[in-house]
């Protein structure tokens, strides 16, 4: 592992400019009150304080991605129609700078789905491999933070390539992966050995501020036990308005829909985010819908994250604990409460 480095606040723009010169650099910026990841613009200061409103999910898994474009052609009366496909598998080299550990960690959940042996996804793999995550460890915790419930923490390096920890005057920079190391070459960075102890203190203090996590280790079985208990799910989902805010803002929600958007003889095939909170998610061509109510749909969202996914993937919970689904929910549906209710009910 490379030596630890240090970047001062003053030198940060220099580093960012150098990074942006070579590839797409995404940083969190304020836009109309929300904080979103956008291409770096030296004129606009990035916002590193609180966690971004929307996670950097779109950097690797865009809200709508063109898989290929197609054109039909026909030469002459008797000729067979031709079809030309133009696949779009290449990905732009990208650095995502300034996400919190939870935002970067979300892709670990994606990796098992899209980079598995069974169904490797060329679009995802290309984008994932072309993207480097420079993550910032947290120095404050919010009421909605619960990364420590799901086996993570405010300085969790998993899923990141470089980890920055806020210290007086700047950040300590640690390489986490071989992919991150080349980024340390910038002259803006100086040796950070002297700051290492301070950074460890920050990490320990932030972790301590989160307190003890409740025991949800039985969530897999507890949620499965509630599968047919629709009264339970009615009570949990009463206030849910069935929008997709929780899903689209979730760093781990990876479901998609595929549609062809064409006009005349040409068009494109799109892969776009889908949300299990929407009626259309499971609507079948016959008109039948196995998840007809919001209670069925919320059951799926919670069950998938805390039961079905961990069952398939070595106990890994498909939630990074960022709390966006709680914070951004128009009616404050709290996934932590639902999981705890199920766990408590299983114990009773």
């Amino acid at each position, binding site marked *: 592992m490379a030596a630890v480095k240090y970047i001062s606040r003053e030198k940060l723009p220099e580093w960012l400019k150098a990074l942006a010169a070579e590839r797409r650099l995404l940083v969190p910026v*304020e*836009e*109309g*009150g*929300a*904080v979103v990841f956008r291409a770096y613009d030296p004129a606009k200061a990035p*916002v590193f*304080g*609180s966690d971004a409103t929307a996670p950097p999910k779109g950097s690797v898994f865009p809200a709508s991605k063109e898989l290929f474009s197609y054109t039909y052609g026909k030469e002459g009366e008797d000729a067979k129609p031709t079809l030309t496909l133009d696949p779009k598998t290449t990905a732009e080299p990208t650095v995502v700078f300034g996400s919190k550990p939870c935002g970067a960690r979300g892709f670990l959940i994606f990796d098992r789905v899209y980079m598995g042996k069974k169904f490797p996804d060329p679009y995802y793999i290309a984008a994932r491999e072309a993207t480097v995550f420079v993550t910032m460890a947290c120095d404050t915790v919010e009421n909605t933070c619960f990364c420590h419930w799901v086996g993570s923490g405010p300085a969790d390096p998993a899923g990141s390539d470089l980890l920055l920890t806020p210290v007086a005057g700047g950040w300590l920079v640690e390489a986490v992966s071989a992919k991150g190391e080349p980024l340390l070459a910038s002259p803006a960075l100086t040796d950070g050995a002297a700051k290492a102890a301070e950074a460890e203190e920050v990490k320990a203090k932030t972790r301590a501020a989160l307190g003890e996590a409740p025991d949800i280790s039985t969530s897999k079985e507890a949620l499965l036990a509630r599968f047919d208990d629709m009264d339970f799910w009615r009570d949990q989902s009463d206030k849910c308005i069935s929008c997709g805010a929780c899903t689209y803002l979730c760093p781990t929600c990876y479901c998609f829909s595929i549609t062809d958007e064409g006009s005349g003889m040409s068009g494109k095939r799109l892969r776009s985010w889908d949300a299990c909170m929407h009626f259309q998610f499971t609507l079948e061509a016959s008109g039948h819908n196995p998840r007809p109510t919001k209670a069925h749909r919320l059951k799926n969202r919670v069950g998938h994250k805390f039961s079905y996914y961990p069952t398939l993937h070595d106990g890994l919970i498909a939630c990074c604990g960022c709390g966006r689904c709680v914070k951004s929910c128009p009616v404050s549906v709290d996934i932590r409460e639902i999981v705890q209710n199920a766990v408590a009910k299983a114990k009773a």
Partner: protein
Amino acid sequence: MPVLTGKELRIVGFLCNWCSYGGADTAGVGRFNQPTDLRIIRVPCSGRIDPLFIAKTLINGADGVLVSGCHPRDCHYAEGNFYARRRLEVLKRFLPILGIDPGRFDYTWVSASEGQRWQKVVTAFTEQIHTLGPAPRFDAVAPELLAKVAGAISQGGNRVAA
């Protein structure tokens, strides 16, 4: 390349089957000179026109939209155009808040016998659209303009500091 490329603008007309479509036909049969920018979509009644037809047409890049139906009290279905008049007037006043020039949309009444009135309406509306020029596109707004409006309502309460 068609000879009119670059000279013509894209204007969409929604015409009711019973009066205005007939009026346009009368103008054609009478060989009245008309500009050729307008593409007509025939609908059963002006009351069939969802204002969203017009909004979608304009948002997706049409340079102008013209709606024409039967004169009030002459609707084939008795009252379709009375409902239409309310909806279309609401839409006309709504367009400018979206950033679409209200001059890009008009509605009027032309009966099946009014070939000359149709010629007049089409000519006047097409001239009006040509004066406005090609419609600006939402996906092609200049970055300077975006920067200018970014803070427009910062004092209006709709803001979370980061």
